[in-house]
Every structure is written in structure tokens, then in C-alpha cells.
């Protein structure tokens, strides 16, 4: 089904991220359509997610990329119903033909953690500090399957080995504080995998880790994904990470999707100026010292205010009046490449 990257792969090298073939959404595992999330408080409304649509095919990785406040975390919580009471969610999220928005909590629990699992950013806060990690894994196993204690124990050790936790049998009895950040995150992944979910949402799962640990965990996730045929939504602010590990990238800004394409296509033909800005802002190893980083001025918009026109217009280098007045639609404008921009990079300006 998936082609492992085109291009010479020597021994020991990883396939490049992103297949050449387009990704069809037939039989997509998860389909998000026009998702909107509002937070209401004290009479004001904050539009955290403003019309988001994308699909996650089985067994593939979708990278959800954006800076803080763009709505990527809120949208993923909306999928599994983990938003606070003050949130109002509209739109559709179909998971294997089941509509998740508005699902009763009891039925959501059959999905959340079991079919869709989530790994969060800060493992120190997600793990119970008073329970041994082995017990936390078996707890997850027991939650979703009726097995004996012994079976659960064995399965837990299996999972720990699966996530490459060294000395799994001894670690079983350890407490979270005895583990490093990278190891704790592996435990989180083991817990998430306990029920063999079809979809894993990794919300900035490696952001708080060291660079080398981050690389290790990402490689582990990729490996697991391929072995288990699991789909993965990778939420991050790091486009570089998406380039290396995602099959398809969706860039978000101000609660909306602004560009979406298979990874290679996106990086080779960046269209939306915001994506371009993100790319340009990444320091490259190839750059000589003191080379300037193109900096886009301004800040992300205040989501409590009504947006008129393109949300990026105050900061965009290619902005025109049209951008300020009319928000560009998020549409497929090249095969398998969607964006929301009146003046995309690299194309003739439409007058």
C-alpha cells in the first residue's frame, strides 16, 4: 500500500517521509468536516477552530502543524470529546462511519482510548506519580479487555518491549519519577497502544524532550505505526518534524486549515505564504553563520475578535486589499494540494 520513499536508500537509512502517490480519502479512517469549536464565556465568543476539514487514511501519518493558538490541540480534543463544558462543537467527525460529535459520553468511552488513543506532551503530568508504571499499563489493558491479571501483566511487558523500554521486567515495578522523560513518554505510548487503537493522536508528544530523545521517539512511533498498521495524527509546531515523519501535512492558522498536501508535494511547492514563512523561519544547518532568518512581523490574531478576510493578511508579504476583505476558501487547487490563498507562492498573481 505505501511506497517507501523514492530515492536511494542505503543500509541504515530511513525512507524519506511522504509517498509520491496521492492519498485518496476513500475509506478514510477518520474524516473531519467543517469542524468548528467555540468557547463561550462572559458573553464573548472565542473561535478556537473555524472550519477545519481533513481526512486520515488508514495506516498513514497526518501532520497537523501550526503555532500556539492555531487550534490544532483544540481540534484533536474535539475529536475525542475531551473539551470542557464551555466549548461548543459543530461540524462532523466520522470515525469509521461513526459520527463522534455529539456522541454520548458512554459511547465515546468505547472509542476514546480504545480505538483512538492519545499521547500528550508532558509525560510527567500525564502519568500518575503514585502508581508503578507497570500497573498503569495493566490498568489501561483492563479498561478495554476482560483478561486475567497474569495475562495483563504479560501483555504489559510485551508492550514495554514493543516501545523499546530497556529492562522491561524490572521497569514494571518502577515509579514514573525514576524514569527519564524519554522513557516516560515510551510508557505513555505503551499505555496508548494497550488496546491496539486504529488511530493514535500524538499531541506535541516530543516537544518537551531532548533533541536526540525526540528523534528516537519519533522513529519508534513510525516503526510502530508501520508494524501495527495504525494511523497517526502528529500534532506539532515543527514543520521539520512533519517533513521527516508525516505522509501528509496540514498547516493550520487561526483555527483554520490553510494548506494541505502530501508531504513531498507540500515542501516542493509551498503555496501558502504562511507555510512559506514557517519554512523560512526554520534554521538550516546548511545556512552559514549569521545568515538572516526571514522574519514575518506581527502576531497571531486575537481569536476573540471576528475575522474579516484572510487571518494572515496583517502579516503576509503578498497581501492585497482582496485578502483583507474576503477570506480565501480552502480548496483543492492542484491535484491533492489544497490551500487557502488568493496569491499563492510560485503561481501567477490573479488580479
Amino acid at each position: 500500500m505505501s511506497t517507501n520513499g523514492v530515492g536511494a536508500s542505503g543500509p541504515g537509512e530511513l525512507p524519506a517521509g511522504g509517498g509520491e502517490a496521492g492519498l485518496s480519502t476513500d475509506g478514510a479512517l477518520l474524516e473531519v468536516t467543517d469542524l468548528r469549536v467555540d468557547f463561550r464565556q462572559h458573553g464573548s465568543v472565542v473561535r478556537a477552530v473555524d472550519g477545519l476539514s481533513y481526512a486520515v487514511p488508514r495506516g498513514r501519518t497526518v501532520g497537523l502543524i501550526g503555532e500556539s493558538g492555531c487550534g490544532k490541540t483544540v481540534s484533536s480534543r474535539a475529536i475525542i470529546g475531551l473539551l470542557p463544558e464551555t466549548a461548543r462543537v459543530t461540524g462532523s467527525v466520522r470515525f469509521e462511519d461513526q459520527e463522534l460529535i455529539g456522541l454520548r459520553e458512554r459511547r465515546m468511552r468505547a472509542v476514546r482510548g480504545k480505538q483512538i488513543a492519545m499521547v500528550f506532551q508532558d509525560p510527567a503530568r500525564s502519568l500518575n506519580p503514585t502508581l508503578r508504571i507497570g500497573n498503569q499499563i495493566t490498568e489501561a489493558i483492563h479498561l478495554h479487555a476482560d483478561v486475567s491479571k497474569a495475562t495483563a501483566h504479560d501483555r504489559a511487558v510485551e508492550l514495554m518491549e514493543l516501545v523499546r523500554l530497556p529492562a522491561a521486567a524490572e521497569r514494571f515495578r518502577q515509579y514514573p519519577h525514576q524514569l527519564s522523560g524519554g522513557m516516560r513518554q515510551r510508557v505513555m505510548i505503551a499505555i496508548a497502544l494497550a488496546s491496539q487503537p486504529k488511530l493514535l493522536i500524538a499531541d506535541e508528544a516530543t516537544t518537551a524532550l531532548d533533541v536526540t530523545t525526540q528523534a528516537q521517539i519519533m522513529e519508534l512511533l513510525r516503526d510502530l505505526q508501520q508494524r501495527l498498521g495504525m494511523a497517526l495524527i502528529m500534532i506539532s509546531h515543527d514543520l521539520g518534524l512533519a517533513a521527516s515523519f508525516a505522509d501528509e501535512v496540514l498547516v493550520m492558522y487561526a483555527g483554520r486549515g490553510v494548506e494541505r498536501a502530501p508531504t513531498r508535494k507540500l515542501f516542493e511547492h509551498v503555496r501558502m505564504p504562511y507555510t512559506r514563512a514557517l519554512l523560512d523561519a526554520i534554521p538550516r544547518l546548511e545556512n552559514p553563520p549569521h545568515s538572516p532568518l526571514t522574519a514575518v512581523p506581527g502576531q497571531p490574531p486575537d481569536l476573540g475578535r471576528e475575522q474579516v478576510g484572510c487571518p494572515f493578511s496583517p502579516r503576509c508579504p503578498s497581501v492585497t486589499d482582496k485578502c483583507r476583505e474576503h477570506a480565501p476558501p480552502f480548496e483543492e487547487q492542484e491535484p491533492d494540494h489544497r490551500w487557502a490563498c488568493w496569491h499563492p507562492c510560485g503561481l501567477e498573481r490573479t488580479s
Partner: protein
Amino acid sequence: MAVPPTETAVPGLMDPATLGPGLVPASAGGRFGRLRSIGGIWVPAFLVLAILFLCFLWPIIGPVPSPTGGSILNSNLPSFSPGHLLGTDATGNDEWSRLLYGGRASLEISMAVTAIGLLVGGLLGAFAGYVGGWRDSVIMRVLDVLIAFPALVLAVAIAERLGPGEVHTIWALSFFSVPALARIARAATLRVREQNYIVAAGLSGSRHWRTLLRHIMPNILPELMTFALLGMGIVIVLEGALSFLGLGIQPPTPSWGNMIASGQGLLSAEPKFVLLPSAALFITVVCFNLLGEGLRARWSAQ
């Protein structure tokens, strides 16, 4: 060690406070959340102000007779008698007036004690927390001795030594408030001291005293104030106890405590002499407590 952009740091389950710029946390409390957040501070604050107004200003501007020096001819008038809304006591003093003046005495003492606690205790504790080392140990050990005594026992012992009267009562109760607030101040200082802005102040050339007064104190003040308000309730009760025991304010000057004491004998015949000052005491303490709680909730959410 990578640290995420400040806004995306998200604990296990999403905390609305961290959703990003422009998203303000919804106040906790569900449907009545908004009401509760307003009620949490403003209602008790209003009540406290009302009590203060009644006890301090109203007797000056309103038709309140003197609480002492009543004529025995008017003694034991029932409630709702003309000119005496709550009646008079055994010696002819207006009960309503005694209640207000009694409140004034109680509140004066409590506020003085709390103020001393904040000033002396706060500075002492902050200093101890900031300098650490042997100075910290010495100060805290001395204060620990005082804290070790149950507050009332301590107050009674000192009041007995000093004798009755308002000033002596303030002294006695300060032995309770100073160590209590010093301890709070020290704990808060230990926490604030580790913050980078204190290090930055030092690098900017700020000397120790300057840092203590202009960086540490303002940042521990919210916590101190909250505990001071909660402590007000305790001090008012302690003062009441002292007066009840005959050590604090002496009759005929009224204070809620000695009013309760003298009303004891008439409890079955005329319960109002005990119930009224008790109710006043209770309401006042509850209001201060609610205010302190409300402020604490507000400040810890920030």
C-alpha cells in the same frame, strides 16, 4: 531539553487556560460559574464594608445613643421599644448601640493585630526566607516556640501577665498573628526567591534590601493578604474569648466577647443578650473568611 512555546504547554487533560492567545479561562463552577466568580469576592467584600461602616461610621453620623451611661430607669426594655430597637440591658444601655460599639472594639483590636502581624511578621518571615542560613534558623526557631502554643492559651497567658485593656489585648494577640504570618511569608518567599526575575534583579545590580522590598514583598503580598483575612476571623474569635474570660475589654465598655459573658446569666430569660453578639461575631467572621477564600481562589487562578 526542549521547552515548548508557552502557550502550548498542556497538562494531561486540556486546561482551558492554556489554549492559546485570546482564550481566557472559563471560570470554574459550571452554570453558576459567572455568578460565583462575582459573588466570590464582591459579596463578602460588600458585607465586610457594611459591617465596618456600621461599627465605625454609623455611630458617628446616625442616631445611636451612647453604649454606656444608660439610666437604670430604662433597664431591660424589650425589643422594639421606642428609641431602643433592640431594647436595653440590665443597666439601661441601648443594646443596638452596645452591639455596634462592641463590634468597633472587636474590629479595632483584630485589625490592629492583623496589621502588626502583616508588618512585623511579614517582614520577618520574608527576611528569614530570603537570607536563609543561620539567621533563618534562629528566627524560625524562636517563632516556632510561639506557634507551638495553642493560640488561646498563649493569648490568655500574656493577657493575664499584662492585665486587661484594649492595648494589652492587642499585644497579647500579636504573639499569635506575627509568627503565623511570618511563617506564611517565609514559605512564599522561598518560592518567589527561586524565580528568574529575582536572579535577573540581582544581575541588574539590585542590592538585597532593594530586592526584598521591591521584588519579594509585592509578590508575596497577595498570599499574605489572603491569610491575613482568613486570620482576621480567628483573631476576632480570640478577642471574644479573651473578653469573655474577663481579660480583654472590660465592662462597661462593650465588646462582643464580654457581652456574651454578661449575657450568660440571662440566657434562659432573655436569650437575645447572648444571641445578638454571637450572631454578630459569627457573621463577621464568616464574611472575612469568604473574602479571604474568594481572594485566594482568584489569585491562585492567575
